[in-house]
């Protein structure tokens, strides 16, 4: 039984890492700008499609027809020559193999620009408008983003292979000195977990240990006073929005080998990430991370057959159920500050 529970726990951590990462960005935006951003899922999706675009670039091919040979249906055989390997040789092959991590390099500047443009162009006009209108405009933006992606990349998911070396499962049991071949888990999912942990740690360190972060935290606590001190807090908040977009985008990139990206993946994650944020407490960064892992683990355990036998369908609703309970009993969430959005 230990192995089953351990595996399920691992699965919960793995799911939780994805939830925490996407909720973190959402909370950054809400905490700093006070904006309820329904387009955050779309940023996650855009990041994933950066990886798709990168792979498309890396796998460009020249196609020549060989009239000598015929395909089984009688047309001349197409001979494809991958460009990257032709130009760069083995290094090109390595690039193609590692296209997903490599595309992080492309994603960071793109998402930063997207985030800043979004904040300067539209979001900034909504700071003073009610939350309902913020929700509506960002919901509209999310629709536009997903439809643009759909018209460029088509409606079908585009599977992104993970590097060959990282396929398959890792024998964690053996690493920990237990019996081999009992506790195994997909290697890429472990990498995703580590990646999330590092990214989350990075964001916290950035806010905690840099002057920039200190000012932003001060601004989150009391925007007016910081402004009175002569600090241009608006510009820093713009950068924070860009940063949130980068975090969402990087999360999206690394998630592509697990889930082939499609245009509506943003919307699928959006509801979930909002639930995570309210469970953690609107505006609380540690809350978002804790709630992400908590909900991931709960969902994983709720999917166990033993649990489902007791409460049928619990795996389908556990996350929403927790959110409802938290909102009704403790509306500021697990770690929210008293008075923030409490009503």
């Amino acid at each position, binding site marked *: 039984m230990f192995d089953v529970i351990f595996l399920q726990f691992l699965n919960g951590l793995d799911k939780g890492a994805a939830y925490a990462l996407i909720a973190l960005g959402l909370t950054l935006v809400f905490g700093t700008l006070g904006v*309820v951003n329904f387009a955050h899922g779309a940023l996650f999706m855009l990041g994933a499609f950066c990886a798709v675009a990168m792979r498309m670039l890396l796998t460009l091919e020249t196609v020549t027809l060989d009239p000598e040979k015929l395909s089984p249906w009688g047309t001349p055989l197409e001979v494809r020559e991958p460009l990257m390997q032709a130009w760069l040789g083995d290094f090109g092959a390595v690039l193609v193999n590692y296209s997903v991590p490599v595309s992080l390099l492309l994603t960071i500047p793109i998402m930063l620009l997207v985030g800043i443009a979004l904040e300067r162009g*539209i979001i900034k*006009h909504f700071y003073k408008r*009610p*939350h*309902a*209108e913020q*929700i*509506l*405009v960002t*919901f*509209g*933006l999310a*629709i*536009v983003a997903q*439809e*643009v992606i*759909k*018209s460029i990349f088509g*409606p079908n998911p585009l599977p992104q292979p993970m590097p060959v070396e990282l396929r398959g499962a890792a024998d964690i049991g053996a690493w920990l000195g237990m019996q081999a071949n009992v506790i195994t888990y997909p290697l890429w999912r472990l990498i995703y977990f580590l990646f999330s942990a590092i990214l989350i740690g990075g964001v916290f360190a950035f806010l905690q240990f840099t002057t920039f972060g200190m000012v932003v935290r001060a601004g989150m606590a009391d925007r007016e006073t910081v402004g009175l001190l002569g600090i241009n807090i608006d510009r820093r908040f713009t950068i924070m929005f860009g940063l949130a977009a980068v975090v969402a985008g990087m999360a999206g990139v690394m998630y592509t080998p697990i889930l082939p990206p499609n245009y509506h993946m943003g*919307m699928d994650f959006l*509801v979930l990430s*909002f*639930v995570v944020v*309210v469970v953690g407490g*609107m505006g609380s960064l540690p809350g978002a991370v804790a709630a992400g892992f908590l909900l991931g683990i709960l969902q994983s355990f709720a999917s166990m057959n033993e649990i489902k036998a007791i409460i*049928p*369908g619990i795996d*389908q*609703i556990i996350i*929403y*159920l927790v*959110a*409802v309970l938290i*909102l*009704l009993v403790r*509306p500021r969430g697990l770690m929210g500050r008293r008075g923030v*959005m409490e*009503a």
Partner: protein
Amino acid sequence: MSTFMSRNDLLLLIGFTIAVLTMPLWLAPFGAGYPDLLNRFAIFAIFAIGFNILFGLTGYLSFGHAAFFGVGSYAAVWSFKLLSMDALPALLFAVVISALFALLIGFLSLRRSGIYFSILTLAFAQMSYNLAYSVLTPITNGETGLQLTLRDPRVLDNALFEAGPGLPSPTLLGMPLQGFEAFYFCAALLIVAFFLAQRISGSPFGMMLKGIKSNQTRMHYTGFNTRPYTLAAFVISGMYAGLAGGMLAIVDPLVGAERMQWTASGEVVLMTILGGAGTLLGPVIGAWLIKYFENIFSAINDVILARFWSFLPDGVSDAMVQITSKFVGDGWFLTLGLVFVLIVIFLPGGVMEGVRRIADQFRPSRRSGRPANQARPHPRPAE
């Protein structure tokens, strides 16, 4: 008359009635005069009117109204299966059961306001959807959708009539309800729904709701307990959604769980905002626009576009076809999203505000006489 209804209200109702009843005529030139689409116009207009009673009047933004719509549909089909193919018991069940459901969800969700209220309704609706899709399969038939079968008991019908061959279809007091008969049935319900919404909006109850929207705290200070009023608005709005769901089941007796998904809830939000939240006609117009685009705009293909742009030189017309084809056909949702964003940014009052602004342009003399608060109805949700 004046004690019952103001002259303006009466004119609006009469105008609305005429417009709805003649829809098959004036929509035919636009390619939308066929019953299936007309029924949807009526049904989704009712859905949006009901949503507006909650959102437009009280400012509470629910992201879970599709759940009541779906419950109404399931209730109606079960009434067909168990009792009778008649539309009236089906609608009665749809409204009553969705009202009970709304009472439960509203009672819990209204303990919070603002974004928390939105998330609570969203969570309840997603739970309903996920359950309907999985473990509630014995009731909902899951993904396949609940539909009529030959083996249904239909207690009342079988007691009264000899069963005919094949699957029966919904009736109204013995009259078959399909095609245009169904449309006029839906149209009649739409007019009644509109009339009721008009009465609610003008009543002291409606005033109270508007007061809650503009400042809930102040209402508290004046000694009002606002909860019963918002809950009543929530339940009424849920009943409208249930009625609309029941009607959709009457014109096509099959219910899939998809109609409870949160994107379906989002759609009614889009309709209401697009047309103009807080106005009577706005949600109806929004619903019609979206359903029209969904059915007609989405059917425009490259051939039609090529004909449209054919007056331009070859290269230019090809380019225009290329560009515009991204916005019609499968891409109609992109157009909708763009229009929606523009409306939220520049025209928060929706189409109705646009109409009023244009009208004001032509009537400069009356502009100054208009009370300031009417010039720009700004949806201010309770925080």
